């Protein structure tokens, strides 16, 4: 009896020792030094790069339609190690690779035919879609692969680019990674009303599924520099881009949604024609839908508190309330102008609702919304909208005058 238990014990110890061995390993692991980290991707209308053309001439290539050109921004092991070692003053810290084809996934996998460090995408920060592509293909189809993928994170930020999207992933500054620059620039929203709240891939999916129209931040590029310039309008019915709002129209839109975190209003005094700049400290908007029978209308109440940050007026002192009220009036007028401007653009030119009027109607009058949501963009373009703006200048900084 005792002996058998000793045997069993010995066998158990032996088994445990064997079991220790697999603990050190990892099934189907890949070394991080042997992979390129994808940090950004730009989708453009198909146009083969010079390299790809040469590959094709030499017999490379496969059956495909050249519909989409994907440009992947990679941080390869070589680039990563060289920049850390030499400080990399002249070197680029990224590599851009373009692939042309018709399937997003196939293009991704084609990269494995061109590099010993294939792309891995769990660190994808941004996705930029070119205007030409966004106008001709539904976004739902363009991002389908990314949303299914287990590597690609749904937190990836989405942009539209007027022009070639791949150009926005270029930089002339040494050490700068354009994809990171883009994703961090979004955080400047507390400085300006011209940056939309960040639209991640998963939020985009929600927008697409809700079939309502929405905006994507527009990025333009020139000579390796980029700028946020307004927004692209995506029509909910087709999920294709139909046009742009410029920077001032985006200002107006932010006033309507009240989602701005900071920024300014530049206006000119009526009498003297001199410059007055109102800086936004906080803004609030309330969209009130009214339904009477079949008639829908909206009231927009905009309120904001801020300060006088720049004034070129020589007469009139800031210690005087009369002056502040004047400045307030001038700025209010400017905001009203911005709002009217973008409303006209939405209702008359594009006939889409991208300011969330439909959303307010959905919340306030769910049953009415069920009735009109199918053709909401159409209905919206004929809906009367009233608005009022109340600005409050709280202070005027360090300088004032009594004159």
């Amino acid at each position: 009896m005792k002996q058998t238990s000793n045997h069993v014990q010995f066998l158990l110890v032996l088994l445990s020792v064997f079991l220790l061995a697999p603990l050190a390993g990892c099934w189907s692991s890949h070394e991080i030094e042997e992979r390129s980290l994808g940090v950004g991707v730009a989708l453009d209308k198909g146009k083969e790069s010079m390299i790809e053309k040469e590959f094709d001439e030499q017999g490379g290539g496969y059956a495909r339609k050249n519909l989409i050109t994907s440009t992947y921004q990679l941080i390869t092991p070589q680039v990563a190690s060289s920049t850390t070692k030499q400080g990399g003053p002249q070197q680029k810290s990224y590599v851009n690779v373009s692939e042309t084809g018709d399937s997003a996934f196939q293009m991704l996998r084609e990269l494995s035919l061109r590099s010993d460090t294939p792309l891995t995408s769990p660190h994808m920060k941004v996705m930029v879609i070119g205007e030409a592509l966004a106008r001709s293909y539904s976004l739902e189809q363009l991002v389908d692969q990314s949303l299914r993928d287990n590597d690609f994170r749904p937190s990836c930020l989405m942009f539209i680019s007027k022009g070639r999207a791949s150009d926005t992933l270029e930089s002339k500054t040494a050490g700068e990674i354009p994809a990171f620059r883009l994703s961090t620039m979004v955080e400047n929203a507390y400085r300006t009303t011209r940056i939309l709240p960040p639209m991640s891939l998963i939020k985009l999916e929600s927008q697409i599924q809700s079939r309502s129209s929405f905006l994507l931040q527009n990025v333009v590029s020139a000579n390796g520099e980029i700028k946020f310039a307004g927004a692209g309008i995506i029509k909910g019915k087709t999920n294709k881009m139909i046009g742009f709002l410029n920077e001032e129209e985006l200002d107006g839109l932010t006033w309507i949604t009240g989602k701005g975190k900071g920024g300014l209003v530049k206006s000119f005094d009526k009498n003297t024609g001199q410059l007055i700049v109102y800086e936004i400290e906080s803004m609030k908007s309330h969209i009130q839908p009214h339904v009477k029978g079949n008639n829908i209308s909206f009231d927009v109440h905009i309120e904001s508190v801020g300060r006088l940050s720049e004034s070129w007026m020589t007469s009139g002192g800031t210690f005087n309330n009369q002056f502040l009220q004047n400045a307030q009036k001038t700025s209010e007028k400017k905001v009203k102008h911005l709002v009217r401007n973008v409303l006209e653009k939405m209702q008359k030119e594009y006939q889409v609702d991208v300011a969330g009027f439909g959303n307010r109607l959905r919340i306030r009058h769910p049953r009415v919304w069920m009735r009109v949501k199918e053709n909401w963009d159409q209905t919206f373009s004929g809906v009367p909208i009233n608005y009022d703006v109340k600005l409050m200048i709280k202070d005027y900084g360090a300088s004032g005058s009594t004159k």
Partner: protein
Amino acid sequence: MMKGSELWVMINSNDRITTPQATVVVINFILGTGILTLPRTVAEQVKTPDVWLSVILGGIIAMIAGVIMVKLSQHFPEKTFYQYSQEIVGKWMGKLFSFFIIGYFLVLGGFHARSLAEVTGYLLLEGTPKWAIIMPFMWASLYLIRGGINPIARLFEIILPITVILFLLVAFMSIKIFEVDNLRPVLGSGVTPVLKGIKTTALAFTGPEIMLIILAFMKEPHKAGKAVLVGITIPLFIYVITVVMVIGAFSVDGVVTRTWPTLDLIRSYELTGLIFERFDSLLLVVWIMQMFTSFTVNHYAASLGLSQLFQKNIHPFMYGVLPVIYLISMIPKNINDVFKVGDMVGNAALVLFGFLPLLLLIISKVKGRKYETNL
């Protein structure tokens, strides 16, 4: 060596659990696959942002069913369902019911093992074969349940606080992408949509049925009612938080297209400035632990049932049901089949634990009264 029947008696007499331990077993058994898929499955049914109301109502229904099961078990102190069902409806019917319930636990165990393999295979261990994920998981469970109900309950006591804290942490950190507009309007289309979701949500609370079995092991069986109510309330809170955060981030339209919405929620935000930027692995860790606890309960309940039906030592059954559960877990051919198995198990639970205990309770009350009047 002790004889089988002696050992079986011993397990019943010395292996006891306290009331909080019973509560913890119920909580751990409830929290399983549902937490990852519930926002989608319920949004598909309800189609309005009122899903959280459905979750609360579903929880209340589960509580009623739980209390009925407890009342039934309290009629037969020291006995599990497998034993007392024969007293109520006769030997053969009782055995048949017991077999159904054992089958339920086996299939649910297979479902748990398979969903674990599906999720880890997709996100964590890409390329690792399913058997290599499921088998170590099963062996660990075997090791645990060999000790009886008390060690199981003690391990669960360690796992539960970790789960709750980490889960609440990762869920609340998604506040960054939360939009309250996605949860409005409340009851915009009336209560009908809410009612449509109740079946789905009630089935997410399957788990109190374990009271049919573990009540026999409780030191203070008269407190079992409290145990089952608290045991459902805590998962109820966790479910409501999950559903609110997921719908708040994705909206009802967005959530119905996501296979594992709760995982997507954690994958959809990054927090800079902390030590970690991403918290998917935290969620997966607590979720895998929860799957382990659920699986263990299934494994134990099925083995115990067989051992009590055949009046044999429980240990051979513990080994014996392992391959059965494994085979069941391998039956679904694709992910849709996996979800279908989940639905099937849910429907079975509705009959076995929604209606059957009530029926048995009525029968035993009637019988009991007859017995008393005869006296």
